[in-house]
């Protein structure tokens, strides 16, 4: 088992590590049960393998020699090796079910976060119109996730918490956990240097940057959060991070930072942030390359062919409609797979996105 000190390395564990970080109340129980089962398994395995190789060597005989014995059964012995292992199985079942029931019983007054899963990303709903792909939690605070899917089955998996639950379209699935180890913040200098590097290379803080620096664009170390149920092309990139704040003030400050546009931020700049943060970027490119959905580049002001054969001018109204009701007008050559963002984006958010899309097109500038 890993000491908590390993969490200083964020999600990066050594090659020889057997478990990921242990950072929730479940992880200790699950790991000890795992070790216990492994121990019992090893006990039987060693007996079986010893007997297997010992017999194979000891009773190896030249062809034609008769076996020393032709005993064909021994009922008490056979009953013994049927019944004794069963006792261990009952133990595993009971302990497993007990911990499982804990995992399914949410404590009253848990901190609630909404989760929207879609191809291929996550949106966490912190209430009051604050959405962000990262999952931010409070240390030692039981947290309940209420999860829904926009399209196909996904599965939310945080290895460090030993917790996983499928996100099934058409129903709400829930899970809960209590983080026990906070993820520290890196020094301001380190963060500033990393931000500068990313900016100079002209990119945004994408998956590669998370992997490279091992902290978020706000400077927090993190635990990995994976999608564990196969969901299509970019299933393996449907990852985000979990940050555990040490104090409520710190968490609230982070939520506030992302709650709205802020007075000093332009519509275009905020639109770009939303583009990265709300999952637009996983399907729509900004350089003209083709992804699951049409590219934003030079979209505004152009005529777009639709799947039903007609054409439409890409203007503010069309863009707004496509965000709120994506299946109303389907662009020719694309599948109607975009989920609706109705109720998930404020008017100001939509204005920002439209402003950003306009800025990517000659006609809009």
């Amino acid at each position: 088992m890993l000491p908590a000190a390993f969490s200083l390395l964020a999600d990066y564990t050594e090659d020889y590590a057997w478990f990921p970080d242990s950072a929730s109340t479940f992880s200790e129980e699950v790991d000890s049960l795992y070790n216990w089962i492994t121990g019992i398994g090893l006990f039987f395995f060693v007996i079986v393998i010893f007997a297997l190789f010992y017999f194979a060597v000891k009773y190896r005989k030249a062809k034609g020699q008769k076996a020393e014995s032709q005993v064909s059964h021994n009922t008490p012995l056979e009953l013994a090796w049927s019944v004794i292992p069963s006792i261990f199985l009952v133990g595993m079942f009971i302990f497993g079910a007990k911990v499982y029931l804990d995992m399914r019983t949410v404590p009253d007054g848990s901190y609630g976060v909404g989760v929207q899963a879609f191809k291929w990303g996550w949106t966490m709903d912190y209430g009051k119109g604050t959405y962000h792909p990262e999952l931010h939690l409070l240390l030692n605070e039981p947290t309940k996730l209420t999860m829904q899917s926009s399209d196909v089955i996904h599965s939310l998996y945080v290895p460090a918490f030993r917790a996983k639950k499928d996100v099934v379209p058409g129903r709400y699935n829930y899970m809960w956990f209590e983080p026990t180890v906070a993820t520290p913040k890196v020094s301001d200098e380190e963060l500033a240097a990393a931000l500068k590097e990313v900016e100079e290379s002209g990119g945004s803080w994408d998956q590669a940057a998370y992997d490279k620096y091992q902290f978020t664009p706000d400077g927090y170390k993190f635990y990995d959060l994976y999608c564990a149920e196969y969901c299509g092309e970019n299933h393996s990139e449907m990852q985000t991070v979990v940050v555990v704040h040490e104090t409520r003030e710190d968490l609230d400050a982070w939520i506030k930072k992302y709650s709205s546009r802020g007075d000093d931020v332009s519509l275009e700049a905020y639109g770009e942030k939303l583009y990265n943060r709300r999952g637009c970027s996983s399907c729509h490119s900004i350089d003209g390359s083709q992804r699951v959905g049409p590219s934003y580049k030079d979209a505004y002001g152009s005529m777009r062919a639709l799947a039903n054969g007609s054409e439409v001018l890409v203007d503010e109204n069309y863009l707004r409609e496509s965000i709120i009701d994506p299946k109303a007008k389907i662009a020719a050559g694309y599948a109607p797979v975009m989920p609706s963002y109705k109720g998930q984006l404020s008017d100001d958010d939509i204005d920002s996105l439209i402003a950003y899309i306009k800025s990517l097109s000659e006609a809009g500038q």
Partner: protein
Amino acid sequence: MSAGTTLPPGVVRDPGFPTQSENYLTNSKGVLSWIFTLDHKRIGVMYLVGVSLSFLLGGLLALALRWHLVDPDGALFSNAIYNQVFTLHGAIMVFLFIIPSIPAALGNFLVPVMLGAKDVAFPRLNLSSFYLWIFGAIFFVLALCGSGLDTGWTFYTPYSTTTDTSVIMATLGAFILGFSSIFTGLNFIVTINTMRPPGMTWFRMPLFLWATYATSIIQVLATPVLGITLLLLIAERTMQIGIFNPEFNGDPVTYQHFFWFYSHPAVYIMILPAFGIISEIISVHSHKHIFGYRFIAYSSIAIALLGFLVWGHHMFTAGMSDMTTIIFSALTFTVSIPSAIKVFNWLATMYKGSISLTTPMCYAISFIFLFTIGGLTGLHLGTLATDQHLHDTYFVVAHFHYVMVGGTLVAFLGGLFHWWPKMFGRMYNEAGGRVSAFLVFLGFNLTFLPQFVLGSRGMPRRYATYDPEFAFLHTMSTHGATLLGVGLLVALIVLLMSLINGRRAVANPWGGATLEWNCTSPPPFYNFERAPVVGDPYDFHDIEWDAENERYVTIEPERKLAPETKPVDTPAHAGGQN
């Protein structure tokens, strides 16, 4: 036939060698004689070629997947192509290789011979199920490739229904293959029920037949559910009846229930025949009576029945009710006991035996090692709390490969080496065979042991790219897969070389007591002239090694005519018997 110098007194029984016109391989010539054959042995050989080609294809895809994963960002394919390749790998291996491998290829050859019968009960049905398999296989592969299906072999809704109609075509392909499987199962059930020779009671059947019988029951009972699932999928797509699709108030988890109600028992279709093969190999090559015959026979049936009740453990994280989840966990544990019993029985069979470390025995030992790991790691997954962490990770990948590859494939290879002399009348190079067993064992462990660690550390399955911290273990696994490929290649070369320059096989090269060793190698097209004498299939008392002719023979006590002497010519009252 002359007896060897060391043989005990008695009459030597050995059928010798078949003539050209008796040998089932040579008694008729030309392609048509194979295409229209009703001989179960030829159909078995054709199946063997078919499943081997499928395995080759699936195996090359597996190697491609492994080599893609040496680089965290993916070395060979785009994400989309990777997804199609793993779908193809899984679907081909499951539906075209593992399910038909032992029952259809080895089973077809062995069931009638082990019964001392001339053929299966319905030879024409047997041939038709082979053609159904060919047709289904082509249809299935075309459906997968034609649409670039990337749903995984499980076709989970709603992902599979949002793409296009190809999921219906693919399920239809699986359904046609299923019919082939049903026909074969039906055939074996009738054959075993009605065509046992006089004296072969149920408990004098070789254990391979028990395993085949249990498998056939599952095939006949479970496969129709796949058909029902297909019909519901079609109804869902054409009429939006709202079973699987959440857009019409359906529930995608219902699809998983239907799918696994077939596919979980199908897992036992894959492993039960392997148990049968191992029971035969361990007993014959230890030259000792199988230990706990009845427990092994009953445990096959127990697995077949319990296997129908545990499908829910594929959905432990899907959001079933807590009660359902806990009940499925309890049922899952019950199915592990019959498997454990078998392992102990095999070990007890080896105890105080006279073990020959032949190639089949090496594979059988390898099987016990690998299957024990596969079985024990199932406990982590059956336990609810640990499963929440390990579900859908590489731990699961490693677990089922230990059971399906370390179990079924290794048993299939062991069985192939065991019955190869019988099937083709040629002995292979023993040293080469043992080397292949060793390489397969080594390569397999190197491939899949690291995956247990990967899964415990939280690496999800079906990932085309992954976090850099997993790279070391992935690379190890890839090199293991290459070694495994080399081992399998060696096995193939050893077997093929035997056809070219192998020594002619005697009727009983290993010293087996079951009926197939009582006819020539290869068997004549009619198997047995008349139903043979049936005794205990694991009684090795009368089987002796004939060193001079390098063969095992059955020694029968010299039979005397009674009365021994000729009666006197003149009756006593006439003055005889002086």
